């Protein structure tokens, strides 16, 4: 298949795209025209919103204004747990320009509707976490708004701040396969380990923000968000209004990474209440401090492994205990635990498995969606653990991974089958060869340089029957110039609009510039599900591909623009169709948890300063098999960007919790990677098409953040320092060195 090596432009970082082999036969749609135009899929079309963004013309929510617009403010709890005796503000009495909203102003149900409807929009009596919203204010003058005094009288009660001692369970699950106890008893060696990860802040550069505009007897939301239809649902329940009175429009969105998956439902609810009460458009934009204090973060995990292995390196028993800090309300925690558990065995075979997972309530702001969604935590644990297993056996850890790696036809820990596109061995071998891993491993031993590896996979799309239940819809429609795409998934930087347009253009045999993409606005686009779970290209792109095939038939050879001129717009809408044979039992955790997996191997090369204990990544190799790169520039951007974010998780990003709230809630104290903290990156995109992805594409968005942390921790281990906890800050490294001396 295609192999195009492109020379390094910067510091040795190169990009190579190559197919694995012909084993996974792609289900390409062959254009139904003679003399097809040059391929569109697989080429680097510039992003559709490129010039809007580089020129500063793109309108983010804070760039929008509406006539008569006023500003909203959230008054929050300053304790982690307690009961409100009274809230008093003289603001409204003294100045008629104030609008004040509390829970009694909620027209229908005081809840942010998600999985469990346990989270109130505004506290009535019981405060369950620091920075919980209790009162809303709005005013045209921001100085007056923020100057208004609010006195809250709270009876404080003891808070549960440590999830390891919490006795309130939000979710529990068990995965069970074979006979773990018997296999452990018969194993030659048992290796145990405990691994911990902390919170991580998404730190999109544009903070959360919305504008609510009262109109048409209801409300329209303009916002920075990933899931317009989640916001719709939350407003429907909160306000008791029918869908035709509600509208959600995505503004240009300055990064999400999961942090704008569920939280915008809360923020939009607040702005909507203020807008409906004041009768004026209300803008609410969090400043950085409020955003970091109040909004969701990656869940902290504690993962304990007890693994039985034979002398030859075969993993015979996998016993895993997972404990998760959910925060004060359920939000998405059950699904994060689930995805974490499903990835906790890593990309390895094992017939005897017991996974016990529990998510605990704490009186801290709810943790939520963040790129990877539980998998980075558990993959960190298993990949750090693999090094310990290799050491215990006196075996090379690459050989150990090769020996156990899942191959096509093998079964996962839930008994799901790896398809013909399974690529664990291929990515591992490519990364090891390309980075000269073994030679560096030998040469650098005892020096200040270390090299470490992580092999990992990521299930794409919603877990189990999730996609079937979502029943996402997307459409295309003929226009005077070609075709337009109507989908409810959003462009948040990942390039989904461009990628979708490439899929549709190629399927229709039309030039790329004849495809338009309708802006996500719930009045105009069908519900394509949320923009999460690495599903936008693979799942929604596939629906659009099917729409295109269908439209081609209807056009019977006619150009869509000519057809439009004769017949007016022709619209084709399709719903998600689950691949045949894909079944998952969500109660017992048995079957195919995902339609497919993307596969990757990361290799981190680091340097330590033995005086300051600072570890710096100097070079990084990322070999990632993603089915098909619809747009190689976007794909490379996801891999490089996810890798940098993963390196932040590994080395820098340390959320300090004090009294139940983030103490370092500023960019001065919470450090994310800058240009000086990121290494050169050598990226290899491998393609082994997935039968049910558009042109073979698999999900990609989350995969790249799963590997950097374990690769870095394993490189630090190569330096002679054993760490079982993230992030590897100089303080933690010093502690590890001092305690081992």
């Amino acid at each position, binding site marked *: 298949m295609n192999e195009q090596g492109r020379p390094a432009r910067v510091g040795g970082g190169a990009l190579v795209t190559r197919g694995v082999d012909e084993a996974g036969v792609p289900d390409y749609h062959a254009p139904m025209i003679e003399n097809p135009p040059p391929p569109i899929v697989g080429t680097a079309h510039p992003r559709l919103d490129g010039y809007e963004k580089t020129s500063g013309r793109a309108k983010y929510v*804070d760039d929008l204004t509406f006539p008569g617009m006023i500003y909203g403010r959230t008054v929050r709890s300053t304790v982690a747990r307690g009961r409100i005796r009274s809230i008093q503000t003289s603001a409204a009495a003294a100045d008629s320009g104030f609008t004040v909203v509390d829970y009694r102003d909620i027209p229908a149900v005081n809840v942010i509707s998600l999985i469990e409807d346990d989270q109130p929009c505004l506290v009535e009596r019981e405060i369950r976490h620091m920075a919980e919203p209790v009162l809303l204010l709005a005013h045209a003058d921001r100085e007056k708004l923020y100057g208004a005094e609010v006195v809250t009288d709270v009876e404080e009660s003891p808070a549960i701040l440590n999830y390891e001692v919490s006795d309130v369970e939000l979710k529990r699950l068990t995965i069970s396969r074979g006979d773990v106890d018997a296999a452990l008893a018969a194993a030659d060696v048992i290796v145990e380990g405990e691994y911990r990860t902390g919170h991580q802040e998404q730190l999109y550069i544009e903070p959360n923000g919305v504008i609510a505009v009262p109109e048409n007897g209801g409300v329209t939301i303009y916002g920075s968000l990933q899931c317009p239809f989640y916001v719709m649902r939350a407003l429907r329940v909160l306000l008791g209004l029918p869908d035709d009175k509600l509208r959600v429009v995505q503004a240009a969105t300055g990064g999400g990474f999961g942090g704008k998956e569920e939280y915008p439902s809360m923020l939009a609810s607040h702005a909507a209440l203020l807008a409906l009460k004041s009768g004026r458009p209300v803008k609410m934009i969090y400043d950085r401090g409020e955003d970091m204090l109040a909004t969701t973060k990656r869940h902290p995990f504690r993962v304990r492994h007890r693994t039985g292995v034979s002398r030859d390196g075969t993993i015979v028993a996998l016993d895993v205990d997972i404990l998760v800090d959910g925060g004060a309300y359920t939000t998405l925690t059950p699904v994060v635990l689930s995805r974490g558990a499903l990835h906790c065995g890593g990309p390895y075979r094992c017939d005897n498995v017991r996974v016990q997972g529990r998510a605990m309530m704490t009186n801290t702001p709810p943790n939520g969606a963040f790129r990877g969604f539980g998998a980075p935590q558990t993959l960190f644990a298993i990949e750090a653990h693999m090094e310990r297993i290799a050491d215990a056996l006196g075996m090379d850890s690459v050989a150990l991974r090769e020996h156990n790696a899942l191959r096509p036809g093998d079964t996962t820990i839930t008994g799901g089958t790896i398809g013909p596109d399974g690529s664990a061995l291929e990515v591992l071998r490519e990364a090891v060869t390309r980075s000269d891993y073994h030679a560096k491993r030998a040469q650098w031993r005892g020096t200040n340089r270390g090299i470490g590896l992580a092999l990992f996979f990521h299930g794409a799309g919603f877990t189990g029957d999730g996609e079937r239940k979502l029943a996402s819809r997307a459409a295309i429609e003929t226009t005077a110039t070609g075709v337009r795409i109507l989908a409810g998934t959003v462009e948040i*930087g990942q390039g989904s609009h461009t990628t979708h347009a490439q899929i549709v253009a190629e399927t229709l045999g039309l030039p790329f510039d004849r495809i338009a993409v309708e802006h996500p606005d719930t009045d105009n686009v069908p519900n394509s599900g949320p923009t999460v779970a690495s599903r936008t290209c693979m799942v929604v792109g596939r629906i659009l591909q099917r729409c295109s095939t269908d439209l081609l038939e209807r056009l019977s050879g006619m150009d869509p623009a000519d057809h439009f001129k004769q017949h007016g717009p022709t619209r084709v809408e399709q719903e998600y169709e689950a691949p045949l044979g894909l079944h998952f039992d969500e109660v017992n955790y048995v079957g195919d948890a995902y339609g497919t997996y993307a596969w990757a191997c990361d290799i981190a090369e680091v340097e330590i300063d033995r005086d300051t204990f600072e570890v710096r990544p100097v070079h990084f190799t990322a070999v990632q098999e993603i089915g098909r790169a619809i747009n190689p520039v976007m794909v490379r951007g996801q891999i490089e960007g996810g*890798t940098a*974010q993963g390196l932040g998780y590994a080395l820098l990003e340390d959320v300090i919790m004090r009294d139940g709230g983030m103490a370092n809630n500023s960019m001065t104290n919470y450090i994310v990677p800058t240009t000086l903290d990121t290494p050169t990156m050598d990226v290899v995109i491998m393609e082994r098409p997935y039968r049910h992805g558009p042109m073979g594409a698999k999900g990609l968005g989350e995969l790249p953040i799963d590997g950097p942390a374990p690769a870095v921790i394993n490189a630090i281990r190569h330096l002679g320092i054993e760490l079982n906890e993230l992030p590897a800050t100089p303080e933690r490294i010093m502690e590890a060195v001092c305690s081992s001396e």
Partner: protein
Amino acid sequence: MQLRVNGADYDVTSHPMTRLLDVLREDLRLTGTKEGCGEGECGACTVLVEGEPVCSCLVPVAQVEGAAITTIEGIDEDHPLLRAFVDHGGAQCGICTPGMILAALDIEPDASLDEIRVRLAGNICRCTGYEAIYRAIRDA
């Protein structure tokens, strides 16, 4: 107070201690300059004052009276750096992009990687891992 932005003169009546960022965005409606952190850490609000990149969230407007200020709106859309950012994926979500482009405007395409890194160290991008930004600068 007189302000000179992108070659045009503006009469500004804001309080002299108002942040330059707010004057640009709210009084002049030049919304291409973005606010990411409000404390000079992220660089999204970067503008050029007499050709030097500064964080406009840290500058009281009185301090730049009479100085030549350049915002992203003052850069020609056909500028090779803008094209290179689009072609190489230097912009993803785009919120850091105007500030990043202004900070990178004077970097020579043959600058060393170390020099590029140092010059951009005050501008945080959460999407790209910076590699595509380096490629764009090298190709501009």
